[in-house]
């Protein structure tokens, strides 16, 4: 089963776009629920976003340096 991961609502101000500063894993890596997958710059701080399932990181949809709105699909995980 594929599970889409969305950009979580980490901003303290409504409607702020969040920038991905870097991915901590690459496509094809095995990932675990709770593992830090990427770093996001919010209006408050830089923080890590955790993986929501166990499996393999299939696709990264939004690359480092890009900004997206909350709810945008940023990765697909093939759930084990």
């Amino acid at each position, binding site marked *: 089963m594929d599970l889409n*991961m*969305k950009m*979580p*609502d*980490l*901003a*303290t101000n409504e409607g702020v776009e969040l920038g991905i500063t870097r991915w901590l894993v690459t496509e094809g890596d095995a990932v675990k*629920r*709770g593992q830090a997958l990427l770093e996001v710059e*919010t209006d*408050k*701080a830089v*923080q*890590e*976003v*955790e993986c*929501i*399932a166990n499996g393999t990181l299939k696709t990264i949809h939004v690359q480092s340096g890009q900004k997206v709105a*909350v*709810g945008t699909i940023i990765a697909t995980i093939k759930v084990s």
Partner: protein
Amino acid sequence: MSTPTYERKFLLDLYERMVLVREFEDTVKFLFLEGTMPGTIHQCQGQEATAVGVCSALAPDDWITSTFRGHGHALAKGLSPQELMDELFGAETGCCKGRGGSMHVGNMSKGMVPGIAIVAGGIPLAAGMALSFKMENKPHVVASFFGDGAVAEGAFHEGVNMAAIWNLPVILVCENNLYGASTHVDLVMKNSRISDRAASYGFRGETVDGNDVLAVYEAAQKAVADCRAGKGPVLLELLTYRRTGHSRRDPCHYQPKDEREAWAQRDPIERFATKIGVTAEEHEIISTRVQKQLAEAVERAKAAPHPDVSGLTEYVFAEAPPRPTALVEQSNPVLSPGGQTRRLGIAEALREGIAEEMAADPRVFCIGEDIGVPGGWGGAFTVTLGLEKKFPDRLVNTPIAELGFFGLATGAAMMGMRPIADVQYGDFLFLASDQIINNAAKLRYMSGGTASVPLVMRAPVGATGRGSQHAQNMERYFTGVPGLKVVAPSNAYDAKGLLKAALRDGNPVLMFEHKLLYGSKGARAEGGAVDASSEIPNEDYVVPLGKAAVRREGQRVTVLAWLLMVHYAMQAAEDVDAEVIDVRSLSPIDWDTIGASVRKTGRAVIVEEGPITGGVGAEIAAGIAERWPQVRVSRVASPDVPVPFTPVLENAYRPDARRILTGVRQILEESHG
């Protein structure tokens, strides 16, 4: 040390309960990251041993109070993951029917009051619940969970002090996770060993490794035994650590990395697994069972029905079971044929009403400052004078601690008692207002209509030579609080009848009384007092809440007033053919009676003692304008100043018959012009 003395099943149950809490919280966290869950969350990953250890030492009919971080407490007390998950999704099937949400989870049938999300607000409540158990000789105990941050709150001091004075069966459970939101305990307390505080109140405190579930369980068991033996309260400081943010967007950058890692080594679940040697097979069985339970809970919660919007205003008030009374008045005093009366002042009539209700209903008790001290005054205005002789155990004299004892009264009411809490001066209600507005008035709604707070509160108001802080008219601050009823009697008949109706109503009712109307005698008599005495029937009667009374009929203008202003309005009305309405019930307002009058006269003058801006008069004016736009409305009230001391200014501040008459003449002339 003690591992061998426990049965394997008990140990594995503790383990499973902790795993359930951890997995529930993680599941919720990922639902947030997924973007499917509304609102905010405060989670307890890392603190599982405190909730599970304490609740395992409680019986099913013992109680807990909790905080905004209450998911773990709820699961440990026996709430199902399903009812919690449904509540978090805002579903009608949630434990509070979606009205409470994450910060207010609870279930009155499982011994958990809805979470109190005001820091330390649950402590006085728990003391009051315990007070009710003591008064009714019930064996229950209350465990009140709070964080390290709560210790700096006044509610902690006031609630804990009263729990100590009366040896109440409360276990004060401080989950010290080192941070109040993002602020480290060392920044906000000189002595950060929280259990030391117990000694200053005269009871036992203990610091326990809060990440060792058996240590917590054993300390809680001992505390439960002490409480049941009448040797409460006990303060348990449980040292633990929050492995997640304060709330959902908090990345915890204030927790140093080495500190996080050190505490991760002391994870309560892993430590316990090692300590009791959970086998891979046992873990697998438990983990699979928990995962399955949670997966089903999420699946169902996502599809659970949400409340219908038409139900928005349900669960604000309880429908009380009526207690039969001989006489119910409809608008003005009634008397059955041949019935006898006596003339009493307000203080005497209230005293008689309280005594009759206490005699009729063992759940009724009085709680307040100086209310039943032999040789004392019977409260600031003699209302409870001498009642302690008749009801020595039911006049609870409190410390000077309004926030605390209004919280105790609320807690006792929630457990089924019928407390009457009074302040010496209405101005002090500001101190108590957190408990009145955030707890007493809201708990029924937040619990989805399962809790009720049959609490009567009394407060003297009015400018009477005492300056700015013992003289305000407080009605404005409490009128329009959802879940709270407000009455303001102008005479002795109403005072007694409304008090009785309030005690039988089953909801929080706040009664304002005017210092110049009490008819207090002796040393407590007031200069400038106005006679508000009435013929009081010998038989039982009530004055229904929510009803105004027409005091004088007239054709040309309606004068609306309450408390002292009714008397002045009556004096003014004689010259101008005015109809005078005693509004009497400020929340809810009796629009039927008011409407019938203003439609007839076409003019309304609203008289209020207190600043004109934002007063109750403004609400009445708006209500008339919306309903009957053809009616001309004006107000006679005090200017926007604090109550002055010097008599010359105080007299200018308080509306009197002359100013009311001027106001009435003005509206009559305007409408002719």
